[in-house]
């Protein structure tokens, strides 16, 4: 049960949230100009790092707002959350788990 700090509601339990995968993947301005390979990359390819990962969550059982988080996928520790449209916070290396 992760504890997730919703930028609007504060820390809440994971069951109130839904996951949205990698953050900052922008929908192409004009999909029609992309070739099949480029379109395929937009559709199917996402970063999958072991370590810090910028990802999206929605507080579906709360304020229903999407937001972004930096979370370590090895330790599951959240390094920070930030509202949609905000810039990612700078993360220090070597934070405790």
């Amino acid at each position, binding site marked *: 049960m992760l504890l997730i700090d919703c930028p609007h509601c504060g820390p809440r339990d994971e069951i109130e949230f839904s996951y949205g995968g990698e953050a900052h993947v922008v929908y192409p301005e004009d999909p*029609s100009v992309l070739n099949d390979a480029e*379109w395929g990359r937009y559709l199917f390819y996402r970063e999958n790092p072991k370590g810090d990962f910028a990802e999206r969550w929605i507080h579906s059982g709360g304020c229903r707002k999407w937001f972004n988080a930096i979370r370590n996928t090895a330790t599951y520790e959240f390094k920070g959350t930030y509202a949609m449209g905000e810039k990612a916070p700078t993360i220090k290396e070597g934070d405790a788990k």
Partner: protein
Amino acid sequence: MTTASSSPSRRTDAAPGHGIDRSQPITITFGGQKYDAFAGDSLASALIAGGNLQTANSMYLDRPRGILAAGVEEPNGLVTVKARSEDDIDETMLPVTSVEATDGLEAFYVSGQGALDPTPDPALYDRKHMHADVLIVGAGPAGLAAARAALQGEARVVLIDKENRPGGSLLSSRTAQIDGTDGAQWAADTIAELSENPDFTYLSRTTAFGNYDSNYVIALQYRTDHLEPKHREGVSRQRVWHIRADQVVLAPGAMERPIVFSTNDRPGVMLAGAARTYTNRYGALPGQKIAVFTTNDSAYEAALDLHAAGAEIVALVDSREKASEAATAAAERTGAELSLSSAVIGTNASVMGDRLAAVSISELDADGALTGETRTVDADLLAVSGGFSPTVHLHTHRQGTTTWNTEIAGFVPNDDVTGEHCAGALTGDFSTQGALDTGTRAGAAALAAAAANAGFDPGSGSGDAKAPSAQVADEAPLCGAEVKPLWLVPSATGSTDDSFVDLQRDQAVSDIERAYGAGMTNIEHIKRYTSIGTANDQGKTSGVNAMAVLAHMIGEEDLGAVGVSGYRPPFTALPFAALAGRERGDLFDPARVTAIQPWHLEAGCEFEDVGQWKRPWFFAKDGEDMHQAVQRESKAVRDSVGYMDGTTLGKIEIRGQDAAEFVNRFYTNGFKLLKVGKGRYGVMCGVDGMIMDDGVTMRIADDRFLMTTTSSGAAAVFDWLEEWHQTEWPELDVTLTSVTEQYSTITVAGPKSRDVIAKVAPGLDVSNEAFAFMEFQDAELSNGVPARICRISFSGELSFEINVDAFYGLSAWKLVEEAGAEFDITPYGTETMHVLRAEKGLIIVGQDTDGTVTPDDAGLGWAVSTKKKHFIGKRSLEREDSQRPDRKQLVSVMSVDKKTVLPEGAQLIAKDADPTPKKGSVQDPVTPSNGQVHSYGFVTSSYMSPNLGRPFGLALIESGREREGEIMKSLVNGELVEVEIGPLCLFDPEGKRRDG
């Protein structure tokens, strides 16, 4: 009144008996024998008091075994406890040491494997959530000291402990005093004092079994097993606590290890600390002639306690070369011979039984080899201490790491878990004063950290908390250079076959040797090869010893190099039912119902589960089966009029200057030019171009739309719209509001529906001219209730949809019922709705589509705008694979015999294909050897149609639209049936009935 016991009582008043109430005698029945016991006894202590420490024989080797431990780590004694009352059932595989003795309890031993009681469990279980600033695990001296230090100011402190009373190790001590008070009494007093603060919670009989991210600790509490049945009504038998703590203090203590030597599994071989616990906590002497075998000083405290309680100490065997102070004192006071640099190398049973009768003792040379004469000493109990392993389980659940500490010969936790503080024996300090000191420090540190994080007032006590002071006569905790672990005592014969490491799995040193010989040098491989550590006790007594034996073989001193001492939840086993909690029966999952549900129930409706919704499936009249009911309902709608509860359709209000633009981006067809007062059917695709939902969207005002979705897709579509708005198009002025449950929706369909609506909404002009298809009108119903009425049809018939605020739903339904009576209006359910829409070739998303179907595949190519520059999914529809001519297309299918209703899911194969199903055994696949038979597609929907007078279906078939008129085959109940491919819409293809 006394009951005859099987053996003479070993209960002694010469020991304190901190854990029992001698004024409350009880009787238990174990293995058919009655035993006297006292309130507070464990099953194990009651048996030991009755002179019986032998358990069932071992599981695989059938060797006699006895109670080894006094706590959850017990490997040998597993019991089945019989149902305590009518609201209980038998429960098996419980450690004999973990079951509290209660009056009338019946139990018996099992040998490593129990039988599940098939009776449904009527007991209640629940869960509870709690938030703590400081959660302390363990109510021994360290945990209690931590609680005193942490419970200051506004702090909320929770203390959980698996035992039935506080005190931990103090309960096992004969002499401990804290601040001048008897230790056990101090523990009780401390709890009483702390409990005066409403923000202190003490949970006894509660085991923290899992420790998860951000200090989420889950614990199991036994609430009623120890109570009289009359106290149990409505009260859960067990409760699973979910505790979110800002700070956690771990003070779980340490567990003693056995020593690995030949025949170390004999009944009567017991951990020294356990022997001490049985004596001091329960007043039950586990033996009368006791030999002690130790690697450290702690066992001498046990020897003195056992001696004080009346036992004879017959030998003191110590692995160390020099006599420690404690050893010398113990030898002096017990009169027992002290053998240094020595080991017990074997045990013998008496001729009459299995229990230990004698131990063999030999000296060890500097290399640990046997030397000198072996002497034999008679003894009925061998108290062993191989050292202590701090209980690091909860720490490692959080990926906390450990370090092998050679001073104490044990793994101790590293300080690498945020918000965690370790105290007491867990830190490797085994003294009582050490527990109080580390506990006080941990509690104060936890308080300070929690107060800083949560911003509450930590009061004045934080930071300078003073630890209570302990006085313990004879205390000889192991420390420093005074531990000499004996990982592997050589046997006299050289065989290691009966030098046991894991008693429950019957695995000995020889098994580890074989694994090593097979090429295995990692402890994880060894565990898997031998199964060590995988039994009920999860290696609590065997884990470190197994690592040590391996380390010994590969010549490694640091056990940390052999593997990690990590454990996975749960710390102790817990029943599935406890985790199920209250989510059983009809509370398993919410059943969502509409406002009209009371009517449906009264009408004897059968329901269909659609997601969490209960939807009316069909309304059988007296004696009808489903088929008959659906035929009647389907015909009634086409012939006269029917009505249906359509409330579950999703409804989303979309408002803003950009609402039209927003809606337009989702549907494949155009919505920008939709006129106010009108609705339009739309198909929505995922980014991958596959159909995800459909429905009618109405324009309420220039800047306001009401979108309807499928029942099961409602939540997903709402989320989908929000996601795009929030993450991609925040610049659009729209707000989205789910209004699914604001309205009750009643569909009235059939040629007579206009007449019914005219009566229901007398002020409404229902003529075609005034109220055209795909329009809506606000109206007042005849009872004064405001409504919005739409002309939408999912059946091809003239059809209206009445929407009222949900709390008016039932009265509106009854109004329709009354108004329709003269037309014999018929309520219908989802099955009839499906028949009617299928006759028209209208899809059900999720039934006729499966996430691989494009709008064109589903015959909805007409709804895909070629003019729109963009809609979600458009780019994917342009891919080559989406344009393949051989894609599966939705068409109708009809059995040529006009009788067979094709099963939904039936596959369609070529007319000349002959898969010759093998008769008989289901083990024979249809095509055992001659390869795949090509499937051209499958039936998605299939019904008997009273309106077509024949069965029909819809199917997704490769290039289906080109195959109209073609005959294919389908396997139905093992027989091949001919199937004709037809157009998607079979009923009223011109759409003449829509306007009545």
